[in-house]
């Protein structure tokens, strides 16, 4: 492996062997030293795939995944034999983040923090059997959820139209085909609508610690330090996981006919335009929509909970959405490559779209500023709101999605006690409410990279700019 620094925080691994393009790592020197060689090799493996454009990309939160590294981006062009790959998206299709602003300050929330965390833990179901009888989605309606995404939620009273314009893709991917989603996926998904799941999914109450770009922050709804903001992180539950699994199996069986050679079985893919690829796109868009709908339903319950705990009306509390971003997705987007505008299938697995001012994909409301980018850190540190930049064109307008894991869950369970983590955080005034101490251990601060370093890397590489920083006050985890 030959890696050279191109400029501050950008490194390139030269083409070698079967690589069709180089691989690029976006990370400052401090973060770069933490990146596992195995993740870099995965980035190089992705670079061997047919039709890949420019370079295979690894962002500063990159870490070892299965097949594709997590924290990676790969764009493919159909006319050059480009492919689509379920593993390049992840099992949790449209795992993503949304943030809701409030008019409250940390001082106003502190006296009611425990009550709020307990109420959110109760009203937004998480953990196992994370099933909700609160959402009235009948068996027959799961296909409507798949076709309409967040629109379905709005139509059924969970939120308002304005929320859609503040969601990536307006909360609804077109080109859905529920007939390409298996019964198994539907059976898993229907009762789980409106639930958080577990692991690294969470609901967090945060306060603003820093504002870096005041005008942009204000436009996004961030008005000042100590303002309380709520962050939600979750995806498509069993519905999306099953779709991914189904198509990995289907593509596995179909692969021999295309004679595509891959260094890793989990890079299994189908040529864009093939029946298999088209069916997957139809199903994937259903998975993406399920997650949009899920986050919208939960947004409604968060609003209700806030109004009930603080005994104030919606108008007094604000509770507007800043934005909702996907970080496990594949989308058809127009990008410039070699002086030509091409429609590419951009895979983001643990990566966030970060479009600059002027792009039609971002809501009119934010078109002058650029797209809000929401990046959560681990439960002990900080989260960021950033904005997309012009110079991110080299990463197909993508940036990091989180801090990126450093150590495995197995290692975390051996070395960390969830009870100790919880006590330490509580000593700092942070409340953690989880369904098990083990999940706290697996998600403990030490197992992730330093989020401030990861964010600094994206800024020094020019792929996104800091707008505001938040620190956690309370979190609920499945």
């Amino acid at each position, binding site marked *: 492996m030959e890696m050279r620094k191109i400029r501050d925080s950008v490194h390139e691994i030269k083409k070698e062997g079967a690589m069709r393009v180089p691989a690029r790592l976006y990370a400052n020197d401090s973060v770069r030293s933490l990146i*596992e060689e195995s*993740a870099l090799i995965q980035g190089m493996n992705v670079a061997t795939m047919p039709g890949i454009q420019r370079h295979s990309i690894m962002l500063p939160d990159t*870490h*070892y*995944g*299965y*097949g594709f590294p*997590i924290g990676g981006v790969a764009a493919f062009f159909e006319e050059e034999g480009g492919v689509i790959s379920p593993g390049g998206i*992840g*099992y*949790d299709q449209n795992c993503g983040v949304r943030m809701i602003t409030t008019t409250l300050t940390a001082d106003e929330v502190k006296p009611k923090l425990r009550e709020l965390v307990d109420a959110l833990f109760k009203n937004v179901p998480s*953990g*196992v*059997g*994370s099933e909700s009888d609160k959402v009235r989605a009948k068996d027959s309606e799961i296909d409507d959820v798949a076709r309409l995404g967040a629109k379905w939620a709005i139509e059924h009273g969970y939120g308002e139209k304005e929320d859609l314009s503040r969601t990536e893709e307006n909360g609804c991917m077109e080109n859905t085909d529920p007939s390409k989603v298996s019964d*198994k996926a539907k*059976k*898993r998904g229907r*009762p*789980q609508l409106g639930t958080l*799941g*577990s*692991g690294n999914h969470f609901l967090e109450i945060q306060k603003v610690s820093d504002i870096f770009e005041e005008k942009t922050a204000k436009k996004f709804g961030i008005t000042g330090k100590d303002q309380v903001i709520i962050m939600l992180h979750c995806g498509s539950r*069993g519905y999306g*996981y*099953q779709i*991914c*699994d189904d198509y*990995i*199996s289907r593509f*596995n069986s179909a692969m021999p006919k295309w004679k595509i050679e891959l260094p*890793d*079985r*989990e890079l299994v893919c189908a040529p864009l335009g093939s029946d298999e690829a088209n069916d997957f796109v139809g199903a994937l868009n259903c998975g993406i929509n399920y997650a949009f709908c899920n986050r919208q339903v939960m947004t409604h319950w968060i609003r209700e909970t806030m109004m009930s705990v603080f005994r104030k009306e919606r108008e007094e509390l604000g509770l507007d959405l800043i934005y909702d971003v996907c970080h496990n997705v594949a989308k058809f987007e127009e990008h410039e490559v070699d002086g030509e505008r091409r429609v590419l299938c951009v895979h983001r697995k643990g990566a966030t779209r970060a479009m600059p001012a002027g792009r039609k994909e971002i809501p009119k409301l934010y078109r002058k500023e650029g797209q809000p980018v929401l990046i959560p850190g681990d439960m002990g540190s900080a989260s960021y709101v950033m904005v997309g930049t012009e110079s991110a064109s080299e990463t197909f307008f993508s940036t990091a999605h989180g801090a990126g*894991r*450093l*150590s*495995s*869950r*197995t*290692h975390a*369970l051996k070395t960390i006690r969830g009870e100790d983590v919880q006590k330490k955080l509580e000593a700092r005034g942070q409340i953690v409410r989880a*369904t*098990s101490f*083990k*999940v706290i251990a*697996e998600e403990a601060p030490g197992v992730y990279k330093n989020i401030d370093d990861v964010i600094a890397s994206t800024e020094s590489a020019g792929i996104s700019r800091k707008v505001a920083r938040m620190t956690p006050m309370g979190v609920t985890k*499945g």
Partner: protein
Amino acid sequence: MKKFEALDIATADMAFAAYGKTKEEMFENAAKALFSVMFETKEISAKEKRGIILEHEDDVILLHDFLSELLYLFDTEHIIFTKFNVKINNGKLTSEAFGEKYDEKKHKFIIDVKAITYHKMEIKKEKNLWKCVVIVDT
């Protein structure tokens, strides 16, 4: 003989190895390992029974499909399985899985398993001991 153990080979997910004196026993222990990732509880009764029939000439795919089916049954019916008997003949797997319905007062949940991945999945026989490696997405 250890039935199964956690492996530290996957940063973002959970990995385990399962063992058996026969291939079938290895499959049974892999199933036990799967549920140990999700639950801490030792005493799970065998009140509920579900049958699984699968077919594939490739043992790795068969293992993936078997564990995936158990995961699907857990996700849809909330049964935590604890005991298994597996028979494999010419690529055809028949199994009975026994367990009980999830009860939050009794069963200590750890983490959701989203899917059984194929990553680094392998089955091999070394000196009369069958071993498989499985990485699950969490």
